[in-house]
């Protein structure tokens, strides 16, 4: 699993520049810029309403930004929404096959078999999604996001509904992807997860990107005497009036 920051001369897999999103008078995102590099895992944290889901929705093409630009098209990014976006009446294989066809993959059936292997769901291929556990549903959800082997994978609170064992398995899977060069960005309220799995952290507050760096850098930014990232994060917010 990659835990190191990108090299200074690395080429960004995805770059977001001055992304702004307005809903009427309200500014949900304000001039947010950052890069994602191959093989890194970036955690996006922030209080409720900070704009985390809005940012990921814009990067994935679900929402259009009011201004700003992104260097990847939606078809080049894998998208894993917070709630599994699956057809519960269909089987695991039918869900994967449908999206493989919609992605216009050269060999949809091969992609289905590959994803069943990677998500370790080969023996559940013909089972209806509605009968799977939340963890397995999330695996299918992630699998669909990865069907076209995207260079960037975006996940919105991917472990929110999972128990610890399911979380562990999910992060093993995501870590494996990063090891193979996929750039991963995820939003979460679980700061410990960021500390454990992310190589970089973005702190988003009221639509503004207040911090971008490694977890250790965030701890140092608030004095470094705190033992965990969560404490550093809370102090960081407090020092900035939140």
């Amino acid at each position: 699993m990659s835990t190191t920051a990108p090299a200074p001369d690395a080429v960004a897999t995805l770059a977001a520049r001055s992304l702004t999103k307005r809903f009427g008078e309200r500014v949900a995102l304000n001039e947010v810029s950052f890069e994602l590099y191959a093989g890194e895992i970036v955690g996006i944290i922030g209080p409720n309403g900070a704009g985390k889901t809005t940012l990921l929705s814009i990067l994935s093409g679900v929402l259009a930004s009011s201004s700003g630009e992104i260097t990847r098209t939606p078809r080049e990014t894998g998208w894993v929404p917070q709630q599994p976006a699956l057809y519960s009446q269909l089987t695991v294989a039918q869900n994967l096959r449908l999206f493989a066809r919609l992605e216009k993959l050269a060999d949809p059936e091969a992609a289905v078999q590959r994803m069943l292997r990677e998500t370790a769901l080969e023996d559940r291929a013909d089972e209806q999604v509605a009968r799977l556990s939340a963890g397995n549903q999330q695996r299918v959800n992630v699998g669909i996001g990865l069907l076209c082997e995207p260079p960037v994978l975006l996940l919105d609170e991917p472990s929110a509904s999972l128990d610890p064992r399911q979380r562990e398995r999910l992060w093993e899977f995501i870590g494996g992807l990063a090891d193979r060069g996929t750039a991963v960005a995820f939003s979460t309220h679980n700061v410990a997860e960021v500390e454990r799995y992310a190589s970089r952290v973005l702190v988003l507050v009221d639509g503004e990107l207040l911090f971008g760096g490694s977890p250790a850098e965030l701890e140092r930014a608030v004095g470094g005497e705190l033992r965990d990232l969560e404490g550093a994060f809370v102090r960081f917010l407090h020092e900035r009036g939140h």
Partner: protein
Amino acid sequence: MSGSSTNAATDAGPVRWLFVKDLQILRRSPLLVGLLVVYPVALALMIGFAISSPPGKPKVAFYSGVAPGKGRISFGNQQIDISRYASQLFQSIQAIKVRSPAAAIDLVRKGDAQAALIVPPDIVPQVQSLVTNGVGNPTVQLVLNSKDPLERQFADQAISSRLGEVEQAVSKQVLRVAIGDLQQVLNGGTINFAGQNVRLLGLKVSRSIVEGAIASLPRRSPLRPALRQVVGFAGLAIAGLGFASPALGSIATPLTVEQTQLAGRTTPTDAYAVAIAVIVSLMLLALLLAAGLLAIERSENAYTRLVRGLVTPGRLLTEKIALAAACAAVVSLLMAVLVSLFVSLEWARFELWVLALGCGGLAFGALGVAIGGLAREVSAASLMALLLSLPVAFVALVPASAVSGGVGTLLDVLAFVFPFKAALQAASNAFSATSPGMLGPVVHLLVLAAVFGGLGRLAVRRFA
């Protein structure tokens, strides 16, 4: 990336795969799909049956005080059996014959009969007196159950209309006898009187005889002026009675109704009922399917995944409309084919059946996606579709003459902006070549499909 390259063989369009996916989802829920098909078909058939079937005969307790064989009245040299006309009455009612007026009333009171018809014993002498002397009051008693106003009205109408026919038939018979007697007074003939055939001279022959007698008398005979008065009277009587016969004949058939159809060829009632049944079925199926299938995309959170480059919202909506229209059209077409075994529909226009149901399905499907887009949740979409469909059918079926001007205009506008009326016109025309033709309703349906599809497109903006 290697996996995302496009292959011509699989580039058949995302709509095809969404179509397959929706059919797989439907196949997973056979009970729901069965209900979705059976419910509208059963409802539609019930509506069609209710419209096409004449109301059944009301149960009427019947008491006649006239003894068997005693129903004859004499009129001149002829007799009329008025009890013969009772059988006409029984064509309209389901008669329960009882032995007394009290028993008849008791049946009505207990609810075993909707009405009681009591013919008193003096009906024959009363009719005889009326016919012979012009004095009489023949009266039958009708007792109605007042508990159910609809049943009361139904029984009242069935009996009253038939009694009117009986009354007219009797008067017609009496007049026929009267006209025959007048003819005999004019022209002479043979009548039966007290079992003996008696020859009547007739006014015309009498006048000839008297004129012959005058001619044979001496010119100055004192009888001549008196006999000339007799001849003059006979002439006047012949002329007067000559006019009287056709006048009486016209009274015997007092009213002739001539029907004029201003709106071109009208739909036979049975074919119209079939059209209503088929369109009700088409409407329910297309609305529920389209609304439900679109709402599923939102409920399953799949909509955002689909529209981020895999398929455009417009194509997604088109797929829902097309699938709902196809399924609804196939089911309603099968229904029409089955019903055509019992009701005469024009098979030579089968391609127009397909056109009418296809276009109707598209319009209802588009309305369905607009509902699904607004509701966003499957159960809410289904409920909205059901709640909307019945008023949509209702406003299209209310006759313009049944409501006041302002309300009628409002109903006309509502019927115009929803697809039921246009679909019904198209189906009626397809089934029996009625007015208006196919073009107007079909264009109307396609415009409505485009409008509701556009509304659906606006509504799904809220899905993201």
